[in-house]
Every structure is written in structure tokens, then in C-alpha cells.
């Protein structure tokens, strides 16, 4: 199976590549629209700011490509945020694949960034979350988040609830870092590899 990691120029690409390699899958890292379109599955990684990352996609003329994909697409962290309609971080329009708005976290006085291992709740029966339970911990690092909605597949609480995993049709995203979330994170990546539309 051809798995392509979109080369967003962001920092966690190697980590994501190695995480799949540990699962026995050699991914291709590319910013070439033809290669991305031909992939069986696509990963959109991201670290940094929404403004810079969207500018990078625009610069590489990948917006239309990502918006027209029919195969499974998984966004990770900032990559997940870019799947939504809009980000308040730099007030930038995003890919609009999953309705939602990225906003500063409402942490009710808890320290930001939300950095560290946290649990999930309201976990849906979506294939990506097969085997997940509310006692599993995953690793988060972020200050912006997507509010809970119809498209939330799992929530996390840090001062208030926010979407930890979102999904719609062939597109899904995780706010946490599955590539850095131990065996639990690896399970999400494995579930993505096995995900049949």
C-alpha cells in the first residue's frame, strides 16, 4: 500500500515517518500533487503555526489536491487543525474538509500550552478508535483547539472539552501526536492503515 506523508515543511515529518516504519510501512514523503493523488492513503502532519503551514500548502499548490482527495486522509496535530474551515491562529482559512473552527483553548486558568499526556472521553465507534478506552493516555502539545461538534470522534478535557479526534467521510484528524503517544498512538496509526471506507 502506498502511504504518502505530505511534506508540509513542518518539523514532525521524520517522527511520523519513523512511527509508520515501526509498524512496517515505508511511507513516501512528498509535496508533489501527482504522487499525493495517487496514494492509497495520505497523512497531513503539522507543527508550528496555522498561518505558516497554510502558506506552505499554498506555495506548493497543494490546497486543491488535498481538498479533492477521495482516499483516507489523516491530519496530525496542526495537520488536523488545517482540515477545518478556519483557524483563529493567524486568522487563516483552512482546507474546509471538516466543519469547525480552531480557537484559543479555554483552559479555565490551567497552564498553557496544554502539554503532556491526557486521557480521552466520549470515544466513538469509528474504525480509527478501535481498541481505545478512556483509561488510555495520549500526548498533546497545543494552545489552540477545535470545539466539540457532530464531527468529534473523541474528546479530551483540559479546563473545558475539546475535540481530540475529528472525522467526516474520508477525512480524519488527531489533535494529539500518535507518533509520540506510545502504544496507544501506534494503535491509532495502525487503525488508520486498516481503515476501509
Amino acid at each position, binding site marked *: 500500500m502506498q502511504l504518502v506523508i505530505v511534506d508540509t515543511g513542518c*518539523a*514532525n*515529518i*521524520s*517522527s511520523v515517518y*519513523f*512511527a509508520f*516504519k*515501526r509498524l512496517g510501512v515505508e511511507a513516501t514523503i512528498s509535496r508533489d500533487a501527482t504522487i499525493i493523488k495517487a496514494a492509497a492513503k495520505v497523512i497531513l502532519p503539522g*507543527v*508550528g*503555526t496555522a498561518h505558516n503551514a497554510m502558506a506552505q500548502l499554498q506555495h506548493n499548490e497543494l490546497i486543491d489536491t488535498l481538498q479533492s482527495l477521495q482516499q483516507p486522509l489523516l491530519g496530525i496535530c496542526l495537520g488536523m487543525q488545517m482540515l477545518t474551515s478556519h483557524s483563529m491562529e493567524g486568522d487563516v482559512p483552512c482546507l474546509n474538509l471538516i466543519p469547525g473552527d480552531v480557537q484559543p483553548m479555554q483552559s479555565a486558568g*490551567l*497552564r*498553557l*500550552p*496544554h*502539554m*503532556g*499526556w*491526557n*486521557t480521552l472521553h466520549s470515544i466513538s465507534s469509528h474504525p480509527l478508535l478501535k481498541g481505545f478506552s478512556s*483509561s488510555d*493516555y495520549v*500526548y498533546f*502539545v*497545543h*494552545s489552540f483547539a477545535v470545539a466539540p461538534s457532530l464531527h468529534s470522534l473523541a474528546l479530551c*478535557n*483540559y479546563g473545558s472539552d475539546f475535540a481530540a479526534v475529528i472525522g467526516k467521510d474520508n477525512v480524519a484528524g488527531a489533535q494529539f*501526536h500518535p*507518533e*509520540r*503517544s*506510545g*502504544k496507544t*498512538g*501506534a494503535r491509532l496509526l495502525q487503525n488508520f492503515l486498516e481503515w476501509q471506507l
Partner: protein
Amino acid sequence: MLAKRLIPCLDVRDGKVVKGVQFRNHEIIGDIVPLAQRYAEAGADELVFYDITASSDGRVVDKSWVRRIAEVIDIPFCVAGGIKSVIDAGKILEMGADKVSVNSPALARPELISELNHIFGQQCVVVGIDSFFDVASGQYQVYQFTGDESRTQKTRWLTRDWVAEVQARGAGEIVLNCMNQDGVRQGYDIAQLKSIRDVCKVPLIASGGAGTMEHFSQVFQQADVDGALAASVFHKAIIEIAALKTKLIADGISIRP
């Protein structure tokens, strides 16, 4: 609920893990990658790698070990030592590190913190602070070049002021190393950590002094730090991470089992 983090720290010199007492007499403990892997499997929540020679030698240091760690490790890790510019940091992050930690170079040029924040985002930027309690003045003072005893020097900064400064410049996390306690295993510097906690709005990691499991319990309960970093108690197997986690959970501390 967000878990408190246990963070083994591996001091790296010439590609090997070393450990000294109060920054001196470094002995080789082992190869980086197998040690890192062992800690990840044992339940460490995060790892920190300090290239302790880098800042003080001023030479170009081979960092290819960062990529070898990223290949095998499935928990977050941070690299410190010798990162003087956005370009240096970019190389480390590209090789797969999740965060970079800056210490002496940020003291020499505080703008470095803002630059790293702007390019890589706040979540990548950790500032390490070596703080020494000066008995004569009764003040906590920031030191630099602590990787090399002959060059270690006091800076013009009081620790409290530097903590405020680095936050204003966009640090995403602060590791406070209490030098008086380092390597002697007499407990974390609770008094100092508590006083810094009051002025630290970003995650604060305690460093220096862990000797017993009780010390970890105390630092989480009394100083409200977000993570506790330790080296020798883990390297010398004085404390097993799994046993420590069981104890901390029993003490009512939020911990990832």
C-alpha cells in the same frame, strides 16, 4: 486529566550517556539509543538529552544520534545543548526531536527565544535554567556554561527575573535545574520551585536532587510542577519507573500508568 510527567535526563558527551556529580567528574553510563529505548519501554513520559559539551566547547557537534533516537522512540523527547540559532534548532527538529531546549545561548542572546517561538511555535521552545542559591546574598542566581566547570559563570540575572523574561519572549516550558541539589540525591529544591511556580505560567519541570520516590511525591504535591526530571536515580536503577508510578498513583498524583 493531564498527567504529571516523569522525565529521565540523559547527559550526552561524544555520543555516550554520561553522569557527573554537581556537573563534575563525568562517567560513561552507556550508549544513547538502547538506553533511550529502555526508558521509553519502562514507562518514561518524556526524555531529555543534554549535549553537555556543546555550549561550552564552541565546536561543531555531531548530532546524528538525534535521528537514531527518533527512529526507535515513541514518546516525546527534547534535545538541549549547543543550539544557538534557528538553523541549529531546525536541524534537530527535522531529525525528529519534539522540542529544543536552550540555556547559555539564550542568556547570551535572549532574542533567540523569540526567534525560535516565531519559526517553530511555542510548544517547541524549552528554556533550561541553571539556578544556584547564593548563601551570602540569599538570592537564587542564574549560571551559564555549566557543562564545563572551568567556564561556569554567574550571570547578571536573578532566577526569578530570568523566568519572567523567557516567558515574555515566548518560552513554552521551563526546566529549572537547582544546581545546589544536582546529583546529590537529597531531594528537589521545593522552596525554590514553589517560589518560581508563582511566576511561571508555562509548564515547569523540576530538575536536580531526586534521590528517593518520596522526593518525587513531594515535588508534585508541594511545588505543583508539571514534570520531574532525574538522571542518576534512573541510570543507577535506584528507582524503577514502574514502581515509582505505582507509588505516585497511590499518593493521589495524576500519573500515566
